[in-house]
């Protein structure tokens, strides 16, 4: 093999440094999540200072779940569906899974706060938008979130020219407590949430079609090397925070009486 010439090397460097088409769609890299603006009603608990975790960092089995609804009978484009989805994202969620976007909304790098109730237990956490273009957006979870991985919300046209809205989740339970919870009841609850989202989205367009679900267990092995994720469990921390509410209230009262 001949040695590359200086010209070849320069061309290679130019190629590596040229900004690719997807550059604007990806969030910037951050070491830890930093939140400056907390939307009204949201709790900045289990978000600030957390690292993001992907499908390789969780504890439980790795599942890919794909939910789809065909928007039959209407003329709309994938871009329009995703535009509406981004604009109304919180409204399409069920009451026990509330999302609070920042002022910038669903855009690369933005954090969406979450206040959820799982089996009656409060879970305060969030997700960050790591990718967003005209036809999809993807959120990634932080340490402590029930899942370690990402969800992609997208729309495309199928072979029949019908616009399909899709949610695809690729994630593991973050720690053993969540894994047990998912196996017992959480998985069904999660599926109910995303089904609700797609039903509500499609109802926005005047469509009432069934939501289909494909589940694939990509990796059936749990990752014991990540068992210590349990220390970041947002559910446990949220519960402690909620239990301590009366104490905070009393301290606040004392503080106001003795300024």
């Amino acid at each position, binding site marked *: 093999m001949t040695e590359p010439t200086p010209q070849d090397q320069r061309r290679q460097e130019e190629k590596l440094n040229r900004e*690719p088409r997807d550059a604007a769609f990806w969030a910037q890299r951050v070491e830890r999540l930093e939140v400056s603006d907390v939307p009204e009603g949201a709790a900045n608990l289990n978000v600030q200072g957390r690292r993001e975790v992907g499908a390789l960092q969780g504890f439980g089995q790795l599942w890919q779940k794909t939910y789809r609804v065909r928007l039959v009978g209407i003329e709309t484009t994938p871009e329009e569906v995703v535009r509406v989805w981004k604009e109304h994202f919180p409204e399409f969620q069920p009451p026990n899974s509330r999302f609070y976007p920042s002022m910038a909304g669903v855009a690369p790098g933005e954090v969406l706060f979450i206040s959820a109730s799982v089996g009656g237990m409060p879970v305060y956490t969030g997700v960050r938008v790591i990718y967003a273009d005209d036809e999809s957006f993807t959120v990634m979870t932080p340490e402590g979130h029930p899942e370690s991985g990402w969800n992609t919300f997208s729309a495309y046209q199928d072979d029949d020219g019908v616009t399909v809205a899709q949610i695809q989740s690729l994630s593991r339970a973050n720690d053993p407590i969540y894994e047990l919870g998912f196996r017992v009841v959480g998985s069904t609850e999660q599926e109910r949430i995303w089904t609700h989202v797609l039903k509500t989205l499609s109802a926005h367009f005047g469509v009432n079609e069934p939501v289909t679900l494909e589940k694939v267990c990509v990796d059936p092995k749990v990752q014991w090397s990540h068992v210590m994720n349990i220390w970041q469990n947002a559910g446990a921390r949220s519960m402690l925070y909620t239990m301590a509410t009366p104490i905070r209230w009393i301290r606040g009262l004392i503080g106001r009486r003795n300024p």
Partner: protein
Amino acid sequence: MPEAQVKMNVRSAGEKASIIDVQGELTAFAETVLMDAYNQASDGRVRAIILNFEDLEYMNSSGIGLLVTLLIRINREKQRLLTYGLSDHYRSIFQITRLDDAIAICDSEEDAVRAANSA
């Protein structure tokens, strides 16, 4: 559904490794092409798969998901996955998605082949 806008070429890199040259776009539509390339690249003796991203033009988050499923499959075969040719932008994406925790990023083909054959 749109066709995959990607081509993949498989070549040998010594006894223990194969290289897959990725040319074009890595999105959800590339799944079949990628898995076919992996099947071609992997035989009983290959211990490492090297992805060459020098001609990668575009990657979205679904493309990252593909790499995860490929990695799981490779690990199941007790093989390793390495990469080279990533621009600064795509290296950053590997860091954002924390793929760099499990996929080695090398600076050149030589480095990748050396690392693959030395394990």
